[in-house]
């Protein structure tokens, strides 16, 4: 825990270093911004930017415990807010005061850097001046500001001070005096001295002529000013020279050791390096045929340099995850205090590096998870004592690399997530009916915490509990190609496992061919490669109702023909060929075998985005350039899985448990409505989830909120197509009437359109996990045909949650 309280201790805490770097940069911009603003006082955007900068500094130094700096920036912020609200218009007087504030801030930052304290300079004069200006806007002061001397933020102290003793500064003596602090330590003295000089300028200034052309207020005016007051006293000047190592030096050493680079530039560098790699590859090919040893050795050097360059450029984009993690102890501490809990945060693997864009995007999810952990998971000391746990709760974050991915584990030893509570909540929120909630496995139930609008906090605290958290966390992580899982044991604790790619820019990939084209498959989803010869195909590949499966070590692996999914198949089924190349892939919880023509090799590919004309194609996530300069598409495994209608296989024990339970549930006789979906798909819907069967003419369908609806019993009933919902194709000829299964939940009826109603049957159903997916419990043989059994409440719940945006 490093905060304001311990900054005297030797090494500078990281957040202080960061604060210094950031603030110094901001201050340099502030100087320019303020001057630009002076010439165009109505530039709202610039004003807001200045305000934000000061606000940030104020906020951060408050956190870090630099009270003096905070007090100065605080009054500055007040003044700026008046300007922002349009109460005052920036004039030279105000600009001077603000610049003086900037200088004071800079001086204090410098002091922080060297002594880790904001110095013992006295800024009360500046503070009261700023406060005064906040009230009168600088209009009241008799004199218009000349602002000249100090406008250039890094002006020589002498030129500033030259006015200090100016006879005209009658009204400001009190302010001037405060600057003289001969016994102050050199560094901190520099601040007040230079600063108060600025203050003096503000107050005593009387050369109204200078205000007229704010743009030209810089050096020219300054020298003029100097000339005019050359005869005046400079008593403080020498002292200042001794005391300060010149104001230019105030520029931080910390910030000089690093620079900020626009990420776009790094991206460009990355692109160029990628090009260089291609050129190198081509040269390597040419020289392979050459016999000149000089040429060969030169090429080899080129080869090495290029590789190193590529690596270095990649490194510029990498940052240790610690940059995010080190901010968390503070969050935990403050939060724990406000909840009266004892919480310790353990961090492990801070040095784990990943791409900066990814670091940015996991910041919020991580913070949220931690807050949740402290707020909800860790119990109060009393409860922990009663439970026989140590009084202090522990949240441990560990980060480590694993095959192109970074795993982040967030483990707490709190109360755990009680599946029963979640079930009750799900029913209460109308996400599930009591029956469907009971059918869900504990693991599925716990995963409900990632649903939108789900929060089980018994009371809303100011920390969390507004129900807009976990779903956002999940979305944010998935957006960068990551996954999040949760497992929990009541009374013992909860573990969140986040898996995110190292970088979005370069990924290892498997290059495969399919119908004369190459495609790259990100290796992250790759489980294994299989090549089957004819006899194996005959023995282990079977086609069930049009869907091919492969028996892989006793499990059924659904197969997807890439050519077919992409619509480029020549019609020949690949499993009728002499051999079969299967790429076993993992998409979310689904494993499937992607059938390709050939496997080329694995390589690092540079991911490039697709243009907007092809962005909507869900089977590709990007494109890359191959060694020969041709473009290859990058397969989006989840997209292909979805389009290939791939199923969930029950390889891990937990989902096996689910299967067993569901099979048991359905083991009793059930009444099922058999419907046709698409031209040949058969789907069974448990009758208990159906309220009525209706038929609507196609022309009765109207549109509301971009959604097809019909008028039904004096209400508006949205329609959803079962074929779309379960990922089947709809019938080629929809006909003139729609067969609709009406399901009501939460006083809202939803019409589920099916292509035909076939039969109602009552029988014992043995459910197979085959084809199980969202809304589909699995498949079963019903009336001698393979039929998919759907869970209408899940489908409708999903549908309605999508409709929330239009006020359903």
């Amino acid at each position, binding site marked *: 825990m490093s905060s304001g309280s311990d900054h005297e201790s030797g090494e500078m805490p990281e957040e202080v270093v960061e604060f210094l770097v950031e603030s110094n940069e901001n201050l340099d911009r502030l100087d320019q911004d303020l001057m630009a603003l002076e010439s165009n006082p109505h530039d709202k955007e610039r004003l807001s930017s200045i305000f934000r900068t000061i606000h940030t500094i104020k906020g951060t130094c408050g956190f870090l415990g630099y009270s003096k700096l905070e007090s100065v920036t605080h009054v500055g912020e007040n003044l700026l807010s008046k300007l922002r609200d349009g109460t005052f218009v920036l004039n030279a007087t105000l600009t001077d005061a603000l610049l003086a504030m900037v200088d004071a801030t800079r001086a204090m930052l410098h002091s922080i850097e060297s002594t880790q304290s904001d110095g013992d300079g006295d800024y009360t004069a500046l503070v009261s001046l700023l406060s005064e200006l906040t009230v009168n806007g600088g209009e009241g002061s008799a004199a218009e500001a000349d602002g000249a001397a100090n406008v250039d933020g890094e002006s020589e102290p002498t030129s500033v001070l030259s006015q200090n003793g100016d006879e005209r500064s009658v009204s400001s003596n009190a302010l001037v005096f405060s600057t003289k602090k001969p016994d102050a330590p050199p560094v901190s003295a520099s601040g007040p001295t230079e600063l108060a000089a600025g203050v003096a300028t503000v107050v005593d200034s009387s050369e109204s002529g200078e205000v007229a052309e704010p743009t030209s207020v810089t050096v020219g005016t300054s020298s003029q000013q100097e000339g005019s007051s050359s005869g005046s006293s400079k008593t403080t000047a020498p002292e200042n020279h001794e005391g300060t190592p010149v104001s230019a030096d105030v520029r931080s050493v910390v910030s000089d050791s690093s620079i900020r680079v626009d990420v776009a530039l790094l991206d460009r560098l990355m692109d*160029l390096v990628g090009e260089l790699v291609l050129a190198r590859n081509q040269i390597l090919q040419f020289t392979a045929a050459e016999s000149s040893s000089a040429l060969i050795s030169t090429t080899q050097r080129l080869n090495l340099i290029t590789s190193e360059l590529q690596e270095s450029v990649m490194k510029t984009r990498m940052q240790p995850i610690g940059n995010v993690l080190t901010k968390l102890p503070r969050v935990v501490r403050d939060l724990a205090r406000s909840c009266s809990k004892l919480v310790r945060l353990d961090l492990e693997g801070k040095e784990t590096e990943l791409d900066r864009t990814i670091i940015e995007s996991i910041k919020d999810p991580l913070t949220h998870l931690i807050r949740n952990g402290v707020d909800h998971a860790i119990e109060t000391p009393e409860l922990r004592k009663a439970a026989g746990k140590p009084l202090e709760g522990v949240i441990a974050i560990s980060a480590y690399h694993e095959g192109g991915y970074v795993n982040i584990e967030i483990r707490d030893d709190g109360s755990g997530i009680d599946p029963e509570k979640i079930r009750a909540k799900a029913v209460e929120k109308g996400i599930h009916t009591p029956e469907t909630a009971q059918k869900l496995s504990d693991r599925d139930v716990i995963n409900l915490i990632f649903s939108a609008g789900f929060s089980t906090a018994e009371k809303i605290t100011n920390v969390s509990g507004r129900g807009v958290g976990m779903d956002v966390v999940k979305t944010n992580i998935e957006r960068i190609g990551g996954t999040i899982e949760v497992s929990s044991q009541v009374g013992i604790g909860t573990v969140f496992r986040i898996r995110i790619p190292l970088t979005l820019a370069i990924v290892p990939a498997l290059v495969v061919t399919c119908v004369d*084209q190459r495609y790259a498959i990100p290796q992250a989803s790759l489980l294994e490669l299989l090549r089957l010869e004819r006899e194996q195909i005959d023995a282990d590949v079977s086609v069930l109702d049009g869907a091919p499966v492969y028996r892989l070590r006793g499990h059924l692996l659904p197969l997807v023909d890439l050519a077919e999914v992409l619509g480029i198949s020549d019609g020949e089924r690949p499993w009728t060929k002499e051999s079969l190349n299967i790429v076993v892939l993992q998409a979310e919880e689904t494993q499937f075998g992607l059938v390709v023509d050939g496997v080329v090799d694995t390589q690092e590919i540079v991911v490039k985005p*697709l243009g907007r*004309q*092809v962005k909507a*194609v869900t089977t590709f996530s990007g*494109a890359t350039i191959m060694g020969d300069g041709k*473009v290859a598409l990058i397969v989006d495994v989840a997209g292909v899985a979805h389009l290939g209608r791939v199923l969930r296989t029950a390889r891990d024990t937990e989902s096996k448990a689910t299967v067993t339970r569901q099979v048991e549930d359905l083991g009793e006789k059930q009444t099922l409505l058999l419907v046709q979906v698409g031209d040949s798909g058969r789907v069974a819907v448990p009758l208990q989830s159906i309220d009525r069967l209706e038929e609507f003419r196609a022309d009765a369908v109207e549109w509301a909120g971009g959604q097809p609806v019909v008028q039904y019993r004096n209400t508006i009933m949205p329609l959803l197509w079962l074929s779309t919902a379960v990922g089947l194709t709809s019938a080629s000829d929809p006909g003139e009437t729609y067969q609709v299964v009406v399901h009501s939940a939460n006083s809202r009826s939803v019409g589920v359109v099916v292509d035909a109603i076939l039969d109602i049957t009552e029988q014992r159903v043995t459910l197979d996990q085959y084809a199980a997916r969202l809304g589909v419990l699995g498949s079963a043989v019903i009336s001698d045909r393979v039929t998919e059994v759907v869970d209408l409440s899940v489908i409708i719940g999903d549908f309605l949650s999508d409709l929330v945006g239009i006020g359903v």
Partner: protein
Amino acid sequence: MSSKSTRNSQQYCTFYLGDLLLGISVEDVQEVIKTQDMTPVPLAPGVVTGLVNLRGQIVTALDMRKRFQLNGGFPKPPMNIVISQEDGAVSLLVDEIGDVVSIDPESFEAPPETLEGACRELVTGVFKLEHSLLLVLDLAAATAVEEVAAA
């Protein structure tokens, strides 16, 4: 377009699509290149011919004959007019490249009412040249092909 029409003369890169003479302001054109090796994109809208590697930049090639719903394919290997846009470059595949012409903005007119079909939506107006009419391509409309064909 409006800001440009205040200038004295504008330069247009012209090209042919069937019988049509079309033009794009030269400022929008990054470069003109010959037919390139293209990687087709399965499931993409039909107008998308494929992806081209232009010195490390991936460019989406759009078949302007299809965009204008003209019959028949390209009479000979098409030319690529590379347009750089905010969200990446696109390449317009056209029959043939014409001259770069300087045009007096005074001769600009809105598209004639009689202009029909795809053409109507894809041009912003017409320049009356001495011997012919130059249709000004609406780049935003011509490159807006976002619907997914087969998903």
